[in-house]
């Protein structure tokens, strides 16, 4: 790719009908402008703050009931479709799970396929992906499309031709390292995280040069300070220095080397603070008895300097995990008032069921409240120490090996998983797709073999006592930590939400419905059943004066493993009424993008 090729060049070249923006010194600068343009959807979460909000309001709470399908597109892939399409100018980029096909569609020509990229990958990577071969999307910068393949290869493609410009291996799939996450462009770097927490890998985030693919920095989730990129004095946790080698001192022996803490979720970026935010996942193994210590810095919110990767601050939400409550969910950056004072906030809905609000400058913990009332493993989180107040009855460590600890809420999939939330500055509310599932958890002894599963627990999952819904879609006030409204859903809501200036919030369901609800009240305004269950994220864009809503359907992922099998039986002892129908009775496989618009 020519260094000075401006993004506007290829778009004009293709369509000649989009506004100009200037070529810039940093890939970042272009994106900083593009993310402000509501007509485009230039990064998976919509903007650097991870808000999944659009200023478009042609589709609004009054007329959304008239929504119609404008066009559809099949990816030709059957497995679970997470993430969503990008729209840059007249081009749309659609990705698929393994084999990680990418399509470039020309919106000015009725979605004609401009190019298709399908990498050749060793199928041996398929079974080392813990939960289906999902991929959460591509990134765009500087006339390039970046794809993080299942086999961990990060590939830069010419956005105009689909030609491979460079490729770099981020990890080693033979050790269980895989790629599922969407890359993130910051300045002249493309950042990627890792998957493989169930294979005893050691997670990290790595920054590569956009132009060359050369590694700029890599920060591990655990290990000596030189690996975690921590300064014992300057890096802080809740205002206190972390001290020397906290990423090894909190582990038994050299267990940190197979410590997990993978980084497969979403990243956010504050250009003013020059900090990148993301979360790390579960420590390996799932058997807590075999893994003494706080296991830092698994289960942690990270703030790193974008240029150097140095850690500014960390907050470990679930020290010494006993339940697989990965901390990888999205970090929403918002500016809101708390106690009358305008604060730069980071809002995070964790797997562990607590919604955290932090000061994103300092890492100070401001609010930590349950966003699902069913959460029972901890009573509360101490805002000073940051520690959860654990309930012994639900501690799998206290229960011990070979003991089945019962009735833990949430289940290992968390009160919310990777499905990203949305934030509307108009209402000041967060719109959160959630899971409403509890579990029994029995840890037992296992041994580590490179490239083989390293789990060490058996689980059973079921809805909370007395409930029949496995999910909720909620509106959340992060300044007070309170649920504004909550919509029960038959299954976990595994689709990324979208909030719009039209006062409409969109999300998908596992049965396959695209739903539109009123942003103020949660009242359902529209639903349409897409060809398959939705685990993708809802995006919006405007083309030729018309607003569109786009979503990938294609059930799979977590849902493909568990929900598809369904809950059977009477759940005796748990109080759930009736039998739960298997998801397979509602939907079948197949990746399709459905695009909606208002009628002419």
């Amino acid at each position, binding site marked *: 790719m020519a260094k000075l090729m401006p993004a506007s060049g290829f778009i004009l070249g293709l369509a000649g009908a989009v506004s100009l923006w200037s070529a810039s010194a940093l890939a970042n600068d272009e994106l900083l402008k593009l993310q402000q343009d509501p007509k485009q959807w230039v990064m998976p979460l919509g903007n650097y703050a991870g808000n999944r909000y659009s200023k478009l309001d042609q589709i609004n709470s009054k007329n959304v009931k008239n929504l119609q399908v404008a066009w559809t597109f099949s990816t030709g892939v059957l*497995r679970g479709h997470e993430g969503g399409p990008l729209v840059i100018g007249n081009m749309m980029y659609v990705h698929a799970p393994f084999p990680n096909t990418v399509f470039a569609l020309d919106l000015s020509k009725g979605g004609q396929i401009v190019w298709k990229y399908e990498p050749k990958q060793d199928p041996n990577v*398929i079974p080392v992906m813990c939960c289906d071969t999902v991929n959460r999307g591509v990134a765009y910068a500087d006339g390039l499309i970046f794809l993080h393949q299942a086999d961990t290869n990060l590939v830069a493609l010419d956005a105009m031709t689909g030609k491979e410009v460079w490729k770099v291996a981020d990890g080693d799939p033979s050790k269980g390292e895989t790629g599922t996450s969407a890359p993130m462009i910051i300045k002249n770097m493309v950042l990627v995280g890792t998957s493989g927490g169930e294979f005893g890998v050691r997670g990290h985030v790595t920054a590569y040069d956009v132009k060359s693919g050369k590694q700029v920095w890599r920060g591990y989730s655990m290990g000596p300070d030189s690996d975690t990129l921590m300064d014992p004095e300057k890096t802080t946790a809740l205002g206190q220095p972390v001290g020397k080698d906290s990423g090894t001192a909190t582990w038994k022996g050299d267990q940190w080397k197979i410590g997990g803490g993978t980084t497969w979720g979403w990243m956010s970026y504050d250009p003013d603070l020059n900090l990148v935010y993301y979360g790390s996942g579960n420590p390996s193994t799932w058997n807590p008895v075999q893994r003494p210590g706080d296991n830092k810095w698994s289960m942690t919110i990270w703030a790193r300097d974008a240029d150097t990767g140095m850690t500014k601050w960390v907050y470990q939400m679930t020290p010494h995990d006993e339940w697989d409550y990965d901390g990888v969910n999205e970090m929403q950056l918002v500016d809101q008032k708390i106690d009358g004072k305008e604060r730069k906030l980071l809002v995070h809905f964790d797997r562990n069921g607590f919604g955290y609000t932090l000061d994103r400058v300092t890492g100070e913990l401001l609010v930590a409240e349950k966003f699902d009332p069913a959460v029972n493993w901890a009573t509360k989180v101490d805002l000073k120490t940051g520690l959860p107040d654990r309930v012994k009855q639900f501690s799998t460590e206290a229960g011990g090996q070979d003991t089945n600890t019962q009735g833990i809420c949430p289940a290992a999939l968390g009160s919310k998983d990777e499905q990203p939330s949305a934030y509307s500055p108009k209402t000041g509310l967060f719109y959160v797709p959630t899971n409403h599932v509890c579990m029994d958890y029995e840890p037992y002894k296992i*041994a580590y*073999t490179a490239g083989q*599963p390293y789990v060490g627990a058996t689980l059973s999952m079921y809805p909370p006592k007395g409930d029949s819904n496995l999910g909720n879609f909620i509106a959340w006030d992060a300044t007070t930590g309170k649920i504004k409204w909550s919509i029960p859903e038959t299954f976990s809501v595994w689709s990324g939400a979208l909030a719009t200036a039209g006062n409409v919030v969109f999300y998908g369901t596992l049965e396959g419905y695209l739903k539109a609800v009123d942003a103020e009240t949660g009242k359902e305004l529209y639903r349409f059943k897409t060809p398959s269950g939705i685990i993708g994220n809802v995006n919006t864009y405007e083309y030729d004066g018309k607003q569109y809503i786009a979503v990938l359907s294609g059930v799979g992922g977590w849902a493909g493993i568990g929900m598809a099998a369904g809950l059977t039986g009477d759940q005796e002892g748990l109080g759930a009424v009736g039998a739960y129908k298997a998801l397979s009775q509602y939907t079948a496989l197949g990746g399709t993008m459905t695009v909606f618009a208002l009628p002419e």
Partner: protein
Amino acid sequence: MRLNGIGSRILTTAAFAVALLTAGAVAHAQDTGQAQPTQQQNSTTTAATSDQDKPYTIAPDGTVSWPVFSGFRRFNSECIVCHGPDGVGSTFAPALIDSLKVLTYEQFLDTVTNGKTEVNTAVQKKMPAFGTNPNVMCFIDDIYAYLKARSDGVLGRGRPQKHDPKTADVGQAEDACLGG
């Protein structure tokens, strides 16, 4: 990570009095040199045809033999991510409760040990080789016993409610096989 084990608590009770399946065919390599993951009542695979047909015991009150329970635990940790909770399959891997109706013990063992590949334009199915994984191979006969009971329809979904105790011998064999 996202791992599921939605389970019910139905237990179909049935009584079978059969010997445990042999572990003689397990060909895993252990640092410790220990290679007997489970208690054995037979010592060769060839003589175990009837045991392979019913390698489990389930008492009239629903109490399952330890290998069945052990197999339940290991299956729902190592195999569930593709083959679904309780062996009922997923969107991308077969339901083993059906597969074991046709697969022989030898075929089962071969597939688990060496893996299987079916990748073409329409299908991307890839079973990994677990031959070097002690968490699977030390318990392969337990897993087989569990799946066979499921496949035969004598064990329902979810966690078996009652099981024989884990004896000291079993615990020692487990420790030895897992490498301490």
